[in-house]
């Protein structure tokens, strides 16, 4: 029946119109909801990002861990190096000859050791410095290198790595926990704020019911309004989050110049879409619940 379809579209148009009108009409009230939403999303997004960055940082530190392979007196250093290079997971190798190593040791220990009293015979072996692609691969790669013929011994930051893994697990866990808690907090605070604005308009809901508006018809403008709040809150929060992140990245890079921190644009986009989802979801749900409350209250049940 084309008439029914027409009626539906007219109602839909009315709903959209109502939602927009309501946002503008209750000016300062809408302002308060949007500010609350912005603040909540800002905190949520900020912490989310920070925990992401901390995780990336610890990972980057982990990637700095190298394996030192000591070549036996009779081993062929160059051949061994290319063999290691072909192991899966190895990023690069670098040969340090025993002479280089001896000189470096003398340099480093100048004030501690009186080298003049020492035999000039170099006691050090050739060393191959190995970098791996993923810090998680260090231990298995080290085992494989150890097993190669011609390798006398290996050394790598075993303790540091274990510690880093612990810290990474902690950062991830704490980050998840805090972000989760903040998500709940955002839901609570903005949902409640929307509740109050709907409460302030319970008379409107009552009258809608009295002139025979259906429940769905009453819900929709509020739902849409909540989503508009969410959208505006996210936009404002993004406008503050993006520059704050650049600032933070620059500072972190200054502090840890040896660790490469990349401004991952995609991660930012992902974060912002999550925030949008949270914001609009919270707005819609907050409205929905409080409208429902009043609907039941005003139906004479």
């Amino acid at each position: 029946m084309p008439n029914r379809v027409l009626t539906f579209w007219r109602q839909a148009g009315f709903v959209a119109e109502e939602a927009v009108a309501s946002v503008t009409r209750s000016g300062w009230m809408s302002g308060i909801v949007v500010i609350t939403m912005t603040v909540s999303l800002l905190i949520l997004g900020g912490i989310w990002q920070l925990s992401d960055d901390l995780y990336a940082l610890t990972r980057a530190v982990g990637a700095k861990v190298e394996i030192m392979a000591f070549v036996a007196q009779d081993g062929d250093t160059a051949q061994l190096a290319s063999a290691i290079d072909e192991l899966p997971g190895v990023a690069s190798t670098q040969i340090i000859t025993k002479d280089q190593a001896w000189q470096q040791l003398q340099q480093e220990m100048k004030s501690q050791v009186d080298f003049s009293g020492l035999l000039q015979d170099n006691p050090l072996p050739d060393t191959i410095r190995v970098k791996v692609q993923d810090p998680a691969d260090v231990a298995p790669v080290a085992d494989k290198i150890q097993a190669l013929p011609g390798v006398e011994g290996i050394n790598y930051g075993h303790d540091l790595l274990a510690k880093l893994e612990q810290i990474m697990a902690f950062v991830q866990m704490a980050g998840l926990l805090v972000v989760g808690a903040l998500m709940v907090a955002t839901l609570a605070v903005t949902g409640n704020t929307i509740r109050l604005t709907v409460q302030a308009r319970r008379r409107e809901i009552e009258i809608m019911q009295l002139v025979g508006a259906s429940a769905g018809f009453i819900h929709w403008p509020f739902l849409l309004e909540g989503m508009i709040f969410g959208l505006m809150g996210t936009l404002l929060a993004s406008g503050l989050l993006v520059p704050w992140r650049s600032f933070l990245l620059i500072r972190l890079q200054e502090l840890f110049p040896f660790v490469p921190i990349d401004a991952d644009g995609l991660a930012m986009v992902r974060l912002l879409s999550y925030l949008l989802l949270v914001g609009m979801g919270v707005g819609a749900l907050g409205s929905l619940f409080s409208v429902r409350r009043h609907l039941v209250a005003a139906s004479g049940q």
Partner: protein
Amino acid sequence: MIRLKQVSKIYPSGVRALVSLNLEIGPSEFVFLVGPSGAGKSTMLKLLYRSEIPTAGQVLVGGVDIGKLSIRQLPGLRQRIGVVFQDYKLLPQRTVSENVAFALKVLGTSRREIDRRTHSALDLVGLREQADLMPGQLSGGQQQRVCLARAIVNTPPVLLCDEPTGNLDPETSWDIMRLLTRINQHGTTIVVATHNKMIVDSMRRRVVTIDGGRLILDQPRGGYPVGVG
């Protein structure tokens, strides 16, 4: 059209607002509902548009037991009943014409039709010039008339009025009454709760008197009862 069978309403506070009330109102009837303050007039009207549900008994409107309607069916009932409230119940943040148009928009009426009907309703109650003002900018009597315009814009088969002339001067009151008579002649069932002795006495319509929640008088062409309450 309207039928109350052994209807009682006891509010949670314990007040017995209506006691075993029986009443039948035919289609196109015009009924005055009178009685002292607190008699139960507003309560009876509230039962008819299901703003309250009866504690006992049945309330039938158009053959439907409205105590049994689900929330989903409620809008259908409300669309068929226009109500003028004692305390106006206008939306304070919308203009007069928006308030009146509201009941039509809810039904998905076309914009042209909405404009046409809203205009003629405001014309009828004499508020054509106030169409773009806010309710807060109107006098009490003007707000009352906006409420009436909203109730009739939808041409519902039943019209309930709670003290429609309570805040109106005699002249305007008579205008409203003439208007209601006209609407009634087009087939709308009308129930008017009122204290306006002058009007009830002169109109010579059916007068239902309640006191203490009980129906105590039902005159087919009556006047305002004396010494009741």
